[in-house]
C-alpha cells in the first residue's frame, strides 16, 4: 500500500504549513549535504585513499580541474543528498503536479549515483593495477611484457563500464557475452599453458613437505643418477660428473625415486 505523503502532510498541516515544511526540508538537506561532504572527506582521508590514488591519471585529471578524487566523491555524495532534499521539498509543497515523473527520477537517482561511483573506482583501480603489475614485471626485460599491464588496465575499465551501464539499465547483454568469452579464453589458455607447471608445483609441494630425499643424497630419477643439488617447487637439480640434470617435479612422481645407499 502506497501512502500519499503530500496528501498526509496537507491534512496534518495547512497549505501554508506544507510550504514552510518544504522550506525546512530544503534547509535541512543543505545542512545534511554539507555534513555528508565533510564526513566523506574525513573518512576517505583517514582511510588513506588520497595516498592510494596518488599519481594515477584520474587523480591528475581531477587535480587539473582544481579538485581531487576525494573531493569528487565527496561532492557526488553531497550532490546526491541535495538533489534528494530538493525532490522531497518539491513533492511536499507540490509546486509541480508531476508525481509520476518525479517518482521515476527518484528511483533512477541512486542508480546514477552508483554508476558514476563505479566508473570512478574502476578508472582508479585500473590504473593502480597497471602500475602494480608493471612494477612486478620490471625485472623481466622482455619488451612484449609491456602489453600485460595495459591488458589488466583495460580489463578493469571494461568491467567498470559494464557495471555502470548495468546500473543505468542500458542493454549490456552483448558486452556481457564478450566478457564471458574473454574470461573463458583467459582461463582456458592459462590452464592450458600452465598445466605442466601446475603439475610440477603440486608434486613439488609434496617433495618440499615430506622431503623423501634432501640435498646431498644420491638418487636415481628417470634413469638419471646423481647427487641432489637443489629441491625447488618446480624442479629438482641432480648432478653427476659435471652434468646437471634439471628434472621437472612431476617426472619425479611419474618415474619414482631410487635412493642409492651404499
Amino acid at each position, binding site marked *: 500500500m502506497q501512502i500519499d505523503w503530500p496528501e498526509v502532510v496537507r491534512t496534518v498541516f495547512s497549505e501554508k504549513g506544507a510550504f514552510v515544511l518544504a522550506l525546512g526540508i530544503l534547509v535541512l538537506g543543505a545542512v545534511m549535504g554539507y555534513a555528508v561532504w565533510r564526513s566523506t572527506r574525513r573518512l576517505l582521508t583517514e582511510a588513506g585513499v588520497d595516498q592510494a590514488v596518488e599519481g594515477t591519471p584520474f587523480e591528475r585529471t581531477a587535480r587539473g580541474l582544481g579538485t581531487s578524487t576525494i573531493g569528487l566523491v565527496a561532492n557526488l555524495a553531497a550532490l546526491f543528498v541535495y538533489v534528494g532534499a530538493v525532490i522531497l521539498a518539491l513533492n511536499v509543497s507540490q509546486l509541480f503536479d508531476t508525481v509520476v515523473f518525479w517518482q521515476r527520477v527518484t528511483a533512477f537517482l541512486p542508480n546514477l549515483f552508483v554508476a558514476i561511483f563505479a566508473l570512478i573506482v574502476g578508472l582508479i583501480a585500473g590504473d593502480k593495477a597497471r602500475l602494480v603489475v608493471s612494477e612486478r614485471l620490471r625485472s623481466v626485460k622482455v619488451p612484449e611484457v609491456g602489453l600485460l599491464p595495459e591488458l589488466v588496465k583495460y580489463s578493469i575499465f571494461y568491467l567498470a563500464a559494464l557495471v555502470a551501464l548495468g546500473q543505468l539499465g542500458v542493454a549490456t547483454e552483448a558486452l556481457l557475452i564478450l566478457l564471458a568469452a574473454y574470461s573463458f579464453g583467459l582461463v582456458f589458455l592459462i590452464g592450458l599453458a600452465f598445466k605442466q607447471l601446475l603439475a610440477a608445483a603440486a608434486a613439488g609441494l609434496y617433495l618440499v613437505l615430506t622431503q623423501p630425499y*634432501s*640435498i*646431498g643424497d644420491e638418487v636415481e630419477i628417470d634413469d638419471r643418477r646423481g*647427487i*641432489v*643439488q*637443489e629441491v*625447488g617447487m618446480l624442479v629438482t*637439480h641432480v*648432478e653427476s660428473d659435471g652434468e646437471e640434470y634439471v628434472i621437472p617435479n612431476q617426472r619425479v612422481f611419474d618415474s619414482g625415486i631410487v635412493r642409492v645407499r651404499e
Partner: protein
Amino acid sequence: MSELADLLEDVVADADAVFLFSPSGSYYERFAEFDDSDVVVVATENDVDADAFVELPLEFTDLSGRVRFGIEGALGQGIVDEDAEVVCVADVFGGSPDTVVRVNTDEFSPSGVYDLFVDSRAEPAVIRDVLEVAVELGKKGQKGKPVGALFVVGDAGKVMNKSRPLSYNPFEKSHVHVGDPIVNVMLKEFSRLDGAFVISDAGKIVSAYRYLEPSAEGVDIPKGLGARHMAAGAITRDTNAVAIVLSESDGLVRAFKAGEIVLELDPEEY
C-alpha cells in the same frame, strides 16, 4: 687555478673509458654525450639505464674496493680491453662526485672479486646476502662477544658428501633461505654452534653443524689464520663452492674461492 686544471687534465688525458660510480641521472646525461670514450656506470642499481653497466653487489665503502670491482666487472664483460686507460669518477665523502682516479687495466692484477659474485655456482644475490649476514655478525657479535662463522655457499650436494654432521641438523626439513629477515636472527643464534653452515645454490640453508672434511692438500692460505680458514680454503678447492668466513680473532670477513682468498672486508667499515 689554471695549474690545477692542467693537473686534472693530465690525469684524464687519453682516457679510453670513463667509469661513473653511482652517478645521478643528470650527471650521467652529461657524460653520455661523449663520443671519444666509453662510459661505464658502476652502481648497485642501473637507475640511469646505461648500456655499459657493472652491478655492485654491495656498497663498498673504500674506494679501491669499488674501483677494483668495477674494473674487474668491465673486463669480465668485455666492455674495456686488457690494456686501457680508465678514469674513474666517484664519491668518497658524501653524495656528489669528488674523486677522480686513473687506472691502467694492464697494471692491475685481478683479485677475482667480480668472479666471486658472477661466475660462482651460487646466485650473486645469495652470495651477497651471506656476506651481509657475516658482516652484520662481525659487527655485533653474539651477545656482544666476537664470534666466528663459516658459510659454504653453492655446490651443496657435493659439500654435504664431503662433510659429516657434528650433531642434529637444526635446519632439517626446514625451508628457509638466506635473505629472509628472520633467517639473519636464526643464523646469528646458531653461530654459537661449532662447524659450518651449508647453503645451496639458490640460497636454501641446507645444514648447520657440519664438520668439513675435504682434502687440504695444496691449500695455501696466509700463515696465522686458523682452522676455520683452512677448512674454508680446502672445501672451496675441493668443490665448486665458495666460502665466507668471519674470523673470531681479528673480526674480518673473508671470501674464498678455489682455495684462495678473493675478498677481505672489515665489518666495522660497513
